[in-house]
């Protein structure tokens, strides 16, 4: 049983065009090439590059020629080494950061600036300390001009969803790290955007709460047909949730490889099939990190 509205037979791998098989890979992963198809895409990233000014005159290439299409209703997970540019990419898609080159299309229209159709859950959360929990959750709806009564109903619904109904009148500083993360989640969900951009939204949650929220997120996604771009450092989580997983290279951030996850839903984090698929991606990730570590230390190995 799959709740994924889009189902595409296998494609070849992204960078090194080795043809994959059409039947599901034995691990449940199918390497895909997202650029190959010409259907309407919800998000199209064309040759995105972004350079940061680092200290002094030196520059840091954070994103390097990212080409990516996300179909309407697709659940795309992005994994990659720490500092590879995942958050940067989400900022760019959200319209909060200007790419140095390339551009982003939303529904085939050139995107300029942020919009309530794309809501980002920041890695740093970005909750407003001057608002209570429920006011924070309400914020996006208020900006969208939703009526008060409806807002409050939704606030209640989403706060319950993240198990924080009791804390609706608390201020942010009165919450634990994991509770804050859930407020940010509720705030983004409550705004009900077409595209949800989630930057490690479950990183601070305990295993059980996270599992529950996985289920909820998957349910909402299936029910509403929302497009989700989900950044995580937990490969298993990526396999658990995604239709597709994109693996980033170390630095500069490029898409090293993409995987179509062809496992039936509902999946579970502890499923053997999920674990197996995750291990495959993890191997690629490991290779990537080792390569870059070697590069970083110019062949010098960390003593241990």
């Amino acid at each position: 049983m799959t709740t994924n509205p889009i189902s595409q037979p296998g494609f070849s791998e992204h960078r090194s065009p080795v043809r994959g098989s059409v039947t599901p890979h034995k691990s449940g992963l199918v390497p895909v090439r997202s650029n190959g198809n010409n259907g309407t895409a919800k998000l199209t990233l064309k040759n995105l590059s972004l350079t940061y000014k680092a200290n002094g005159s030196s520059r840091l290439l954070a994103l390097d020629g990212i080409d990516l299409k996300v179909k309407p209703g697709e659940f795309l997970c992005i994994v990659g080494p720490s500092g590879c540019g995942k958050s940067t990419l989400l900022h760019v898609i959200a319209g909060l950061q200007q790419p140095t080159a390339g551009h982003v299309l939303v529904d085939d229209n050139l995107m300029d600036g942020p919009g309530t159709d794309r809501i980002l859950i920041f890695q740093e959360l970005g909750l407003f300390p001057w608002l209570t929990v429920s006011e924070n959750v309400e914020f996006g709806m208020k900006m969208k001009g939703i009526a008060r009564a409806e807002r409050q109903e939704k606030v209640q619904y989403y706060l319950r969803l993240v198990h924080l109904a009791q804390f609706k009148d608390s201020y942010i500083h009165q919450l634990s790290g994991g509770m804050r993360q859930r407020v940010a989640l509720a705030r983004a969900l409550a705004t009900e955007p077409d595209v949800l951009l989630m930057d490690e939204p479950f990183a601070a949650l305990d295993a059980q709460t996270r599992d529950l929220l996985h289920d909820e997120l998957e349910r909402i996604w299936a029910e509403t047909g929302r497009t989700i771009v989900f950044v995580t450092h937990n490969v298993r989580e990526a396999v658990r949730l995604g239709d597709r997983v994109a693996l980033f290279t170390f630095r500069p951030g490029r898409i090293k490889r993409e995987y179509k996850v062809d496992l039936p839903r509902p999946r579970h984090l502890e499923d053997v099939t999920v674990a197996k698929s995750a291990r495959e991606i993890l191997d690629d990730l490991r290779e990537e990190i080792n390569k870059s570590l070697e590069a970083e230390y110019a062949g010098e190995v960390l003593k241990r």
Partner: protein
Amino acid sequence: MKKFMRHAIFYSVLIGIWALLAKLKVWPPYVFPSPQGVVESLAAGFADHSFWIAIGVSMKRMLLGYSLSVLLGMVLGLGVASNKFLEETMGGLLVSLQSLPSICWLPLAVLWFGLTEKAILFVVVMGSLLSVTIAMETGRQQMPKIYGMAGRNLGARGFRLFWHVLLPASLPYIISGLKQGWAFAWRSLISGEMIFVSLGLGQLLMMGRDLNDMSQVIAVMILIIAIGYIVDGLVFRTIERRLQQKWGLAPAT
């Protein structure tokens, strides 16, 4: 209770030192009056109602002028914040315009408003207006980027972004501006009340100085300090405390 005791001790010691210095006649009493002298001045001033009138008149002007300059200062701050052109041109002038002494505004005040309350208000407003704007601009410049980003991400734009995000996010800065603005407003009021004899505390202060009546000068100073103390406690401390509670900020120890 203990806090009250500490306060009592602090002020008693201050007044004690003062009384001692006056008693020792380190300086002639004309220029360095004793606490008794000042208390007598205070008593006399209150007895013949001149202090009550002065406080009433000056407080009315302060409230009006200060509120007006806070309001206008914020609007200007919004303008400078939201308009790149204004920011470039006005932004760099804020500090220098604020440093113009009130005496510069007196001729304009008389020219535009005649010898009216409005002229005095104008001087007060010109004197403290930009103080609030400076604080707002600093707040906006020094505010963590994430708030603006989160606000825009959630669909806040233009005035709504300002009102719902930028303003509350820079409130901790604005408080400092409000306090400084209060100080500027008082000082400007005193200047403004020199345009013509207009019954306020500024008038009393200047009279005291003109007559070299230090008891009166110090009595008025005490009135100004007392009013400031009350306003600080009622307004600024309250805002600060609420902010600290909301934001979970706390005085570091």
